[in-house]
């Protein structure tokens, strides 16, 4: 049994479930955005602002954003443990990914709620 400390969940099963669930959320969100773009025709600032002033769109967007965080962490962590063998380089890569994802989430919350 291998027990890494830097993966997302407490074990491989949890990582696997998180990866699949977030993939479904992201797929639905992508369809929602593409569908909105197609149905609304011309994209205007006013239309876009009206859409994102709806609470459920904001919550849905935040859910998608958090899904990106978890999904990307599981994926990039896996890629890093596959391909980057020197532990220090691997750790720095994981740190970079973690900080970047955190910044995305904070930035996204700011955009959505204008905090």
């Amino acid at each position: 049994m291998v027990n890494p400390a830097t993966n997302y969940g407490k074990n491989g099963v949890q990582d696997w479930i998180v990866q699949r669930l977030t993939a479904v959320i992201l797929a639905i969100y992508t369809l929602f955005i593409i569908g909105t773009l197609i149905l609304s025709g011309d994209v205007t600032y006013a239309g876009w602002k009206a859409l994102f002033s709806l609470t459920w769109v904001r919550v849905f967007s935040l859910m998608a954003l958090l899904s990106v965080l978890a999904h990307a962490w599981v994926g990039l962590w896996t890629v890093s443990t596959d391909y980057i063998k020197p532990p220090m380089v691997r750790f720095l890569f994981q740190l970079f990914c973690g900080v970047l994802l955190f910044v995305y989430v904070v930035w996204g919350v700011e955009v959505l709620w204008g905090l």
Partner: protein
Amino acid sequence: MLKVSVYRYNPDVDEAPYMQDIEVEIPEGKDLMVLDVLGLIKEKDPTLAYRRSCREGVCGSDGMNMNGKNGLACITALSDVVKGGKLVLRPLPGLPVIRDLVVDMSLFYKQYEKIKPYLINDTPAPAIERLQSIEDREKLDGLYECILCACCSTACPSFWWNPDKFVGPSGLLQAYRFLADSRDTATEERLADLDDPFSVFRCRGIMNCVSVCPKGLNPTKAIGHIRNMLLERAV
């Protein structure tokens, strides 16, 4: 004439591995196996090293990479593998080379050992034997036939990157062989040993293992069953 290119490396003499080109005369009207060709080469050059034993696909000794695909040399016919009159022979990829086509299988066996490849049952043994129903016995078909030739695991990129942590298709096929066995009582312990992010979950389902298995087995399917058992246990 068949052009054969063989991977050669003798660490005592060679600084680096190299490919040796040899022309081999193939007897007219015969479809030889790759192992026969190796025999003809060894007659010319006795320094060539490779493993072999039963020469009929049962012992699993002569797994190697033939024109880019892993398989057993003894049951791979030239007509199936030779393209454009050329045959390239390399050792199984991803394992340390001991000499020429002979690889160090220690990591492969270590992973096999890890899954406890034996029946565990602590209940008192019956007088004669532990019986299985016909249906329960059938669950082991397609699992017990593995000969541990390592063709599958050494065709698997996940095993190349993490041979010390990912059990690999061969080991996982055997893991499921015991998980599926109605006589085995250690299912929970076995699953607990497999639920980390590496042992099972490094399988990306690319099915290289299925495409190379000389016995026609399906490790990817077995891995899917293990994953389902792990999921059922987790949710």
